[in-house]
């Protein structure tokens, strides 16, 4: 065997495959050959196992009769792939930054509701931003269409902002209608759909939890501003919401933590409601002798 190796060694070195003859390589080649099973495959192995550490890649690829090192080639492929996904990620992050600035505008606009009894005009400007958001999410969807089925690969990049968006939309929806914005409704508002680029259910639920933490502050300020019926409505809504959330079987993750926080929000609202009620500030159907404000909706307490 040793003789065969020496011959192989000399024939290889004489052919000078490698413009940058890297002598330590050749003994390695020979030793690899020594691990091969049968002599007939010897020559094939010698032919196929190239000088893998050839640094002059470009040159060796054009001069050498052998294929370019398979080891390098695979990793070059990986480099290209990963760089592409990196570029994609940059684009996604750019769009998400725009979403972020839009939500900041919306949030600032919505903060006005705390200052006085909300009038419909207060909601006009935040509502106008919804169109902008729709367009931004559409751009995200377009970017992702280039790499189908990888929604969740990049999901982390827009997850946080999306949760904020849902909370703002849900709060606005509640201010307008007194109802909970549902997942499907939220999707529609943002122009998303499940087949293409959807709203993740967990993001939606976390967004709702964020919204519920706005309500205690809202109800406190409303009472201060003179709206004594607000606590009743908010309490009713929050009780229902909390009950609905309890139907979920949550594991110990972020959503669970947010949901756990909801009961403190609920308690705060209950306290406000209690404060208002015992002082006789609310107009109740069952409150004795109090005949102010009969225009409340019937039987919904």
């Amino acid at each position, binding site marked *: 065997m040793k003789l065969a190796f020496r011959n192989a060694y000399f024939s290889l070195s004489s052919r000078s495959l490698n413009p940058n003859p890297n002598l330590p390589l050749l003994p*390695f080649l020979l*030793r*690899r050959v*020594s*691990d*091969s099973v049968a002599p007939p495959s010897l020559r094939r192995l010698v032919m196929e*196992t190239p000088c*893998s*550490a050839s640094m002059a890649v470009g040159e060796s690829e054009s001069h050498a009769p052998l294929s370019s090192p*398979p*080891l*390098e080639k*695979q*990793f070059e492929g*990986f*480099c290209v*792939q*990963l*760089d592409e*996904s*990196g570029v994609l*990620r940059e684009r996604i992050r750019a769009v998400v930054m725009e979403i972020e600035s839009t939500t900041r505008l919306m949030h600032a606009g919505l903060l006005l509701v705390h200052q006085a009894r909300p009038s419909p005009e207060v909601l006009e400007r935040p509502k106008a931003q919804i169109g902008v958001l729709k367009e931004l999410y559409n751009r995200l969807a377009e970017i992702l269409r280039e790499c189908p*089925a*990888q*929604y*969740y*690969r990049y*999901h982390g990049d827009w997850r946080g902002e999306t949760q904020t968006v849902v909370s703002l939309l849900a709060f606005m929806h509640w201010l307008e*209608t*007194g*109802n*909970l914005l*549902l*997942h*499907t*409704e939220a*999707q529609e508002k943002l122009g998303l*759909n*499940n*087949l293409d680029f*959807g709203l993740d*259910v*967990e993001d939606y*639920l976390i967004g709702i939890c964020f919204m519920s933490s706005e309500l205690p502050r809202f109800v406190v300020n409303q009472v201060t501003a003179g709206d004594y019926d607000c606590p009743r409505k908010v309490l*009713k809504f929050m009780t*229902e*919401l909390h*009950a*609905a*959330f309890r*139907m*979920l*079987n*949550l*594991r110990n993750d972020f959503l669970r933590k947010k949901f756990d926080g909801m009961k403190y929000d609920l308690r705060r609202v209950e306290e406000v409601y209690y404060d208002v009620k015992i002082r006789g500030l609310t107009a109740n159907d069952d409150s004795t002798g109090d005949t102010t404000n009969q225009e409340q909706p019937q039987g*919904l307490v």
Partner: protein
Amino acid sequence: MFFRGCAFQRLPSLMASKSKRIHHCFAAEVAGTVAQSTPKRATTMTTESSMADAFSKYADYLNALNEKRERIVKASRDITINSKKVIFQVHRVSKYNREEVLEKAEKDLAAVTDQYMARLVKELQGSDFWKLRRAYSPGVQEYVEAATFYRFCRTGTLLHLDEINATLLPLSDPSLAPLQINVLDYLLGLADLTGELMRLAIGRISDGEVEYAQNICKFVRDIYRELTLVVPSMDDSDDMKAKMDTMLQSVTKIENACFSVHVRGSEYMPLLGSNDPNSILLGVTDIEP
């Protein structure tokens, strides 16, 4: 409670679609429900029932998702355990039992593929590949480690990602998207491979197969070098960066061991595995590191 009863009646029809793409069927069902409820009277009765209905659907969705995640984690654990067995098996290789050890390892690896990877294939569809990646990634990394380790001991070459994925293709139903290991898990598995190769190299040196150890050294150096170019571009490259540090340590250990043998080679090389009855070192096998 009235509303809860209402919600439960709808469950059987939802069960059938659970096994399919839950995420995709979800909106259609929810939309259907909302359409069924009484139209545009902003009374709280509608709110309550649609809220409870909606949340019962969210509950179904989350339950199905979590159950699937559990099953995938279990499959991943099984893959991990059995891949480790393959690795231990390959470690037993020596000059004398190479063929039998590697044959058994090949069989064991095929069993991991057919039995345990197949379970992953069954569970993962469409968006699951990336959504639930954290659940199955450890198992897949271990599998890559085992497969590349076996291949190296068999042929001295690196098993490529496309090659592994080719072996996984037959496991999937041709009508569905096949389970294909992604670049990130492959590279993470490769990083672990170098640790095993380090152990193998040290073991081979102890057995006197110094050339083999030097081959391993070269191989690991190549991998390390290639990886340094690729790692910074990886998604969440933090754990990979930690692995790169460990890898460099492994490379260094192998290099140091080779160095020791080289420097002291003349002292004990000819006596290793010596059957010379006159050798004073007959029967002595340990070598200073």
